[in-house]
């Protein structure tokens, strides 16, 4: 069976899942299933089929599992968002379609992705600029103390979602070129040439901590950088030094920047009586929701998100359910098994990304594939780790699942890049006459 046919078959269970999911939610909602659910399933299948045919034409040799896995996560996200608030599911579906268009555009315009290397400094500058946009007065949005979004009218946009792509591209290109310099000699010498870039990126992460005030996204960016640095140089000493610097900086800011300090305090003491109904409300309620999930969960559509208070007004008992805490909703409704299944899906997707990195032929491709996979993995870790109290909770999205246009669109672009890289890596031996 060809790679593309495997991809097509992979999409079938996804479609079944989205149909079954919508049915389950609708049944709990008001017992009016009818044709609506079939329609949702059919539309989703149509979109995926379109993307599949597009991949079949443009990237015939690309990895067959990546797209179905991403579609699975996106479909699952749509069901969850629909379950939380149907009106947002419609918007999210719109963003998904827009994301697929951008996905196709990326594949068309970046057929030769190596041109990216040529514009690496431009890309880096634009990415940094994007990151700092939320601090620009007038368009920046402060949400829970962090500056992660900007707004144009009613549209919100999270620039970090896109700058993560740009920065990974820049790092892949930069490290490909300088890795020889970095690894020369048995021990890295303490010189600006060696540590300059590292210090620069560390400084960037620290600036993010101070300016954007988000521990999660700076951890994600800096983690991706260290991962790529390690792949490029194989020097564990860089990683250790980098982690030490980051930890030092994080501790410093945790003690000196009130917002970061608060985040750490509520992470350590979410049930402290003065915090649990106040600043720690979100994390505490997220944990309570997970506790009610148990092994198998309460069932799709059964989670308690709001209740009617004594004054008749709805009271939110799970804040940010469709964004930051969507993992808690998943755990509540599908239990430990459902949540572990989602983690497994991410694991498989990331595995395909690293596999692409392994079989790529040149340093840039390897670094880019590894970097993109690492950044997705880290993003999952940062948000799920935040919700499960492994690390302080911060406001990044759960890739493909969380509500948010920027997130789904940016992650579809990441997927497009990985598919382009995969196509190139799997095609090359054949073109050179080798055996697949």
């Amino acid at each position, binding site marked *: 069976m060809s790679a593309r046919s495997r991809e097509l078959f992979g999409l079938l269970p996804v479609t079944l899942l989205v149909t079954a999911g919508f049915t389950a939610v609708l049944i709990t909602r008001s017992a009016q299933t009818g044709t609506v659910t079939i329609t949702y399933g059919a539309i989703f299948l149509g979109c995926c089929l379109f993307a599949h045919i597009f991949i079949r034409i443009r990237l015939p040799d690309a990895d067959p599992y990546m797209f179905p896995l991403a579609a699975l996560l996106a479909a699952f996200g749509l069901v969850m968002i629909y379950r939380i608030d149907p009106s947002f599911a419609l918007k999210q579906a719109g963003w998904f379609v827009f994301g697929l268009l951008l996905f196709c555009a990326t594949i068309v315009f970046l057929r030769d992705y190596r041109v990216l290397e040529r514009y690496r400094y431009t890309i880096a500058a634009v990415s940094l600029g994007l990151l700092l946009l939320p601090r620009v007065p007038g368009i920046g949005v402060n949400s829970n103390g962090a500056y992660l979004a900007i707004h144009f009218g009613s549209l919100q946009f999270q620039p970090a979602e896109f700058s993560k792509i740009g920065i990974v591209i820049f790092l892949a290109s930069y490290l490909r070129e300088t890795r020889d310099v970095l690894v020369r000699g048995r021990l890295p010498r303490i010189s600006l040439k060696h540590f300059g870039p590292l210090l620069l990126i560390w400084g960037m992460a620290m600036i993010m901590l101070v300016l954007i005030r988000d521990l999660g996204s700076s951890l994600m960016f800096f983690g991706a950088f260290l991962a790529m640095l390690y*792949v490029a140089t*194989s020097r564990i000493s860089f990683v250790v030094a980098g982690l030490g610097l980051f930890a030092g900086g994080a501790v410093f800011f945790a003690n000196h920047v009130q917002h970061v300090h608060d985040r750490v305090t509520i992470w350590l003491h979410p049930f402290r009586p003065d915090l649990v109904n106040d600043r720690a409300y979100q994390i505490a309620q997220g944990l309570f*929701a*997970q506790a009610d999930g148990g092994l198998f969960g309460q069932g799709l*559509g059964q989670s*308690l*998100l709001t*209740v009617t208070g004594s004054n008749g007004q709805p009271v939110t008992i799970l804040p940010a359910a469709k964004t930051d805490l969507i993992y808690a909703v998943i755990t509540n409704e599908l239990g430990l098994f459902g949540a572990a299944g989602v983690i497994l899906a991410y694991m498989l997707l990331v595995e395909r990304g690293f596999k692409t990195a392994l079989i790529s032929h040149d340093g840039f491709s390897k670094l880019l594939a590894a970097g993109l996979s*690492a950044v997705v993995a880290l993003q999952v870790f940062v948000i799920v780790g935040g919700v*499960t109290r492994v690390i302080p909770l911060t406001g990044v999205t759960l890739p493909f699942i969380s509500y948010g246009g920027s997130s789904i669109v940016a992650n579809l672009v990441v997927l497009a890049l990985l598919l382009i890289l995969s196509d190139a890596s799997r095609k090359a031996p054949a073109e050179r006459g080798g055996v697949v």
Partner: protein
Amino acid sequence: MNRQIAHLFGLVLVLFGLLVVFTSRWTIFEAKGLQHQTANRRPLLEEQRVPRGYIYADDGTILARDVRKGKGSTLRYVRTYPLGSLFSHAVGYSFITQGSAGLEREENDALAGRHNEFTSIVDELAGHKQEGDDLRTTLDPAAQRAALAGLAGRPGSVVALDPSTGKVRVLANVPSYDPNQIGQGTRQAGSSLLNRATQGQYAPGSTMKVVTATAAIDSGRYTPDSVVSGKSPKIIGGVTLSNCCTEGSGSFGPLTLTQALTDSVNTVWGEVGEKLGNDLMFKYMNRFGFDKKPPIELPSGELTASGVRGKGGRLLGPSDDIDIGRVAIGQERLGVTPLQMALVAATVANHGKLMKAQLVDKVVAPDGRVRDTVQPAEVTQVMKPDTADKVTAMMESVVKQGTGTAAQIPGITVAGKTGTAEVANGTANQAWFIAFGPVPNPKVAIAVTVERTQGEGGTVAAPIAKQVMEVLLREHR
């Protein structure tokens, strides 16, 4: 670079493994702890999505039921109490924001349909919706109304039960509250939330002499015909005690114990108490249930033990420095609940056998199946049946020709004992009456108390007891 990429993937596996470990921690290993966090309203909210069982009176009147609100994921059931404040302290309430009390709290597992983990998993797999069980209580609305009518707004309490089974017919307090108003978030006066019948700490006055008489006769130290000097004043506990100011006033000559109970002569019972001593008095008090929370299906926080209380409310024992002569006549630092005194009367009525007080008669499944019938439970044999017969005869005399004549019911033999304890530095009385009837086969035992009244037990409390007993006995025929 490939080795490093493999390492990196290994690290990702470790990180994702950590996420699964932490998810397991919250969903499985620490789930119970999280569910018991006070800030966690989910368990209570989940319960509101299950139709809660109704609570019925023994005649089938609905005391508590559910009203359905919202639909789909906002569906919830809200409690309503059709009889308002009539049974507030016995039935209690259950609301998301205000918590729960009374039977609603104590019998929550049955009402919420939580039987055990196994059956609920089976039900879930079989697609059965979880539903709460109904409670059929022993409470009697007509008698409860009679009790409240008798109290007529005066703070106090009435407890009536079946002496042979412990089934509680009346548990009435003034003031009480309307549980529906609690559900609407209306703040209730703290005093109205107090279940006086099970939490009040009142001086029992001369009703305590029933306990003293039991100790005196059951121990073999006295008989109903033993003669004791009724002179007044006497030195009891080193302090002058006189038959003054309340019932049984004046100085008497030599009296039998029956005469001394009939006229409630303090100096006789003070002397008897002192002669019996701390150990014997406490032995019988403890057998009656003093020093322990009363045995009834109400939350522990709504029950208070009766007994002699020292500094900081500590319960005192026989080895403490206590004026036992005054304990014997219901003074000293003795504080009792009306339920305890009703159980004292019931024990004598039931031939010396103390039964557990019981509010729930049956637990009925939604399909009408009786899931559980609560069997009457004996707590202990407090006294020999022969002693009980003798004390009964003494108490009959109280109603026939003594201080309790206001409780006489035509055609029926009633046994009783009045009590009048001075409170507020002698400016007001705590009026008491405990009784049972009809002798020889009592169907009702009762305790009535009225706070801070100018009247006495025989004039204020006894008529209320009579009214309530009449209602209950009429139903029995």
